[in-house]
């Protein structure tokens, strides 16, 4: 059997985290290939719809990377991102999706080392979680297979 290859979609803000990813490249650091980068102007531009769309199109985890508080190019975009992240984590749990599948990290332009480490950690923890076959769905399927009631 082919081992599970997680798909992780990362939304990176243009001003800090994307530059941080660049700096990881410039340092020739290894970055997990399971991580697909989408460049956004700001982490505050990442709407919950985009996150859910990524899950519905097959992502096993979604990550949002933005500037540290106080560093946002647009003053408070990362504040919005953080609150949305908190609300979405709670909602995902209610929908039967492990909240750990949504991640948010602050990565500045100089934090190439942190970028590579965080990506590796997210990919590995997603590998542990397994495919987005929510626990609840599995339970439902097993019960459905168990016959009529």
């Amino acid at each position, binding site marked *: 059997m082919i081992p599970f290859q997680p798909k992780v979609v990362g939304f990176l803000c243009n001003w800090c985290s994307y530059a941080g990813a660049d700096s990881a490249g410039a340092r020739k650091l290894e970055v997990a290939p399971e991580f697909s980068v989408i460049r956004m102007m700001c982490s505050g531009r990442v*709407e*919950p*719809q985009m*996150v*859910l*769309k990524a*899950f*519905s199109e*097959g992502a096993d985890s979604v990550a949002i990377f933005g500037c540290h*508080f106080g560093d946002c190019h647009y003053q*408070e975009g*990362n*504040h*919005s*991102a*953080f*609150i*949305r992240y*908190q*609300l*979405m984590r*709670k*909602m*995902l749990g*209610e*929908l*039967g*999706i492990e909240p750990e599948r949504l991640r948010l990290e602050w990565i500045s332009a100089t934090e190439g080392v942190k970028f590579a480490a965080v990506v590796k950690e997210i990919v590995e923890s997603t590998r542990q979680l397994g*495919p*987005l*076959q*929510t626990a*609840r*769905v599995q*339970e*439902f*399927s097993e*019960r*459905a*297979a*168990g016959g*009529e*009631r």
Partner: protein
Amino acid sequence: MSKPKVAFYWCASCGGCEEAILDLNEGILDVVAAVDIVFWPVAIDTKYADIEAMPDGSIDVCFINGAIRMDDQEHAVKLLRRKSKAVIAFGSCAHLGGIPGLSNLTDRVATLSRAYLEVPSLDNPNGVVPQKVTEVDGGELTLPGFWNRVLRLDEVIAVDYYLPGCPPQPDTISAAVQAILTGDLPPAGTVLSPGRNMCHECSRQASKPEKLKIAEIKRIHQVLVDPDECFLAKGVVCLGLATRSGCGEKCMSANMPCRGCYGPTDGIVDQGAAFLSAFAALLGPGDRPDLGEVVASFDDIAGTVYRFSLPASLAHRGNLMKNKGEPTP
């Protein structure tokens, strides 16, 4: 010229949509004068066999309300689709899954055991749960199969237009019926209600502060809201931020916040996600020390933001699993 033929049908719904048609009051007489109602189980005595006997495409417009969860509903809507030129999803349940769609937070086994075995007011000493086939003296009794999840009407058959609302309001219905009778119709797939956002039209708009900030999330019984005051300004979750207008503010005029029954505006796929997007901005700043408590105090986020649209949500398991082999339905 003969009058256009019209049919009405109901699936997983409460009957409120049928009431909504009767709420046209005298207006119903104009409808009856203008069209020929060939099938409407709630109001006139017609049989499935009458529909089966009709040539395909002989009904001009068929209004179907309710979501789809059972074998007989699937059978009836597929039959009506074949016999109808245009099918209109009538009301929130047919449009987005509606209140019955909330049972997609769980599955068939849990739904049936809650309803037939666990409810405190229940009187079911023998623990009887509906069965598809039951053996009795003299033969077998059958019931339509109850599915593992609720589907929207357009997951089962092609739908031409959507009439939103729980239930659709008389103005929405009249405008749609007029458009159909005169043939003045928008492109197929359109939701037949103005595409603007509730907050644009809200009569409480004037009391909304320039910079809206929510200190604490309140439920409606915890706070007194004046009849002209913005609910969000009081910390009450109001789905007007992400809901289509056209309902005539029935809830607001009863001093209740918008619950989102008209569904998302044009261009928005996921109503709940769109709401969270806007709502998050009101809870800021992100570094407030009590953010965790505020978020935790938002009870049942999924059930609130998807009250009428869970089966249409991107994160709903039907959607997530479409490529991953969940046994359907």
